[in-house]
């Protein structure tokens, strides 16, 4: 555990000193400004518009953070041949988990900053206190933590950075399409194929179903978030994450580096 934390601390330190974080902070500031601007175009829905567009920004930050803090740094380490030095000293699993934990912490920092920014804007400009935005930040961390773990798995399979980034993006898009696809099949009724419906349902369990983490509508409309659903999302996210990380370590241990 100590080794994992040592690696995680290193990852945090290098991320805090790298230019990517500063680029991300600039994006964050510009995006929050954009949220304020478009909220002025709405009629009496300032808070909702800020929340809605802000949560979209949180997703963008999560996606960029997953690819840049999580994956890019991982590939850079291999390119510098530093991976070999580290793996001569520590087990492969500790290395991966340490990297994941460190990058996850930076991702969480970005999501929380974004969440706080939207919360403050909603409060100051929209005259609405919306603590549920922190719940949205939490779900972003869970969702993109899972996506990052999937990226790590692709890394251990020997994929190039570009291919990995595209696949991660693909998994993200597919993972957000299941609910809609299932609803469409159900709406088709007897005209739809029950086989296809079953197939999509099975896939939605096998592949990560990111719709589980999407409470945006409830938050924007100040609806109560069902505790059961929130707990289910957490349980689903953590179980899936544990399984993907375990598989990643297993693949890494079997691979030639």
């Amino acid at each position, binding site marked *: 555990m100590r080794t994992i934390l040592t690696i995680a601390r290193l990852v945090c330190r*290098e991320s805090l000193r790298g230019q990517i974080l500063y680029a991300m902070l600039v994006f964050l500031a510009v995006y929050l400004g954009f949220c304020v601007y478009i909220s002025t175009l709405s009629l009496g829905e300032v808070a909702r518009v800020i929340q809605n567009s802000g949560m979209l920004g949180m997703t963008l930050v999560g996606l960029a953070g997953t690819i840049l803090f999580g994956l890019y740094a991982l590939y850079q380490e291999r390119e510098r041949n530093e991976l070999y030095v580290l793996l001569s000293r520590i087990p492969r699993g500790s290395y991966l988990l340490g990297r994941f934990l460190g990058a996850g912490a930076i991702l969480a920092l970005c999501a929380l900053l974004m969440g706080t920014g939207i919360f403050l804007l909603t409060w100051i400009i929209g005259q609405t206190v919306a603590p549920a935005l922190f719940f949205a930040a939490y779900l972003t961390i869970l969702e993109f933590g899972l996506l990052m773990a999937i990226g790590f798995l692709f890394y251990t399979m020997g994929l190039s950075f570009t291919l990995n980034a595209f696949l991660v993006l693909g998994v993200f898009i597919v993972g957000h399409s299941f609910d809609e696809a299932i609803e469409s099949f159900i709406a088709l009724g007897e005209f739809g194929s029950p086989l296809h419906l079953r197939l999509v349902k099975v896939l939605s369990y096998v592949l990560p179903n990111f719709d589980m983490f999407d409470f945006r509508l409830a938050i924007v409309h100040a609806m109560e978030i069902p505790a059961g659903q929130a707990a289910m999302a957490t349980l689903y996210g953590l179980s899936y994450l544990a399984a993907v990380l375990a598989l990643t370590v297993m693949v890494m241990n079997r691979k030639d580096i």
Partner: protein
Amino acid sequence: MLELSRLCKAYKAREGRVEALRPLDLRIRQGEIFGLLGPNGAGKTTAVKMIMGFLHPSGGRVVFQGRELAVTDPRRGIGYLPESFRPNPHLSVAEYVRFHCLLAREDRTASDPEAEAAALLQRVGMEQYGHRRISDLSKGMEQRVGLAQAFAGDPEMLILDEPTSGLDPLGRSEVIDLLLSLNRGGKTIFFSSHILSEVERLCDRIGILVGGKLQFLGTAGEFKEKWQVNDLEEGFKMEARCVPS
């Protein structure tokens, strides 16, 4: 100290089975400097990577200090510097070496990583650059930092892949002196290099790999005698032409 028995690696490629390393038997003795030579693609890096546990061997085993090493075991007691190594550019020199001192120590309470890092930097002549960011260092300085991290944890053995690459003649000479002084202190050194004058100056024994096969094992003097030459390079060229079938 380090024993390789029947260590081999074969890959499946489009053209069929490729033997990157044919069964290799080698014993590195305690306190010696051993140089592994060979033309490009001879299997040197494959051999080193299998010793370090980065590649799964197709057969054979690696025994270090009487203990057989599994592929994914960390190599405690072995300091390693890979070829074309670039340390983490976001850290300062002292932070980087301290980090490796922390990782290298199994029992973290046994030594003060701060003091160990300072001593290592002094050993490689980088003590006045401890505060400097690695991204601001020259290639030669980066190589010294790489050597410092390899010495972290006071390993019994050092495995160095092209340790003098990127250094100017003065830097090269300093590194060789450093390795000789470490060896006098009882360290076993296994290294690969293309610079044959270095090899001749440093090594007690050399091994020459050609086409994945160990063609020669002995002293530099014995090698020159084998080919009836005065120059190691001349003999090396003749050996490299004898590609095994």
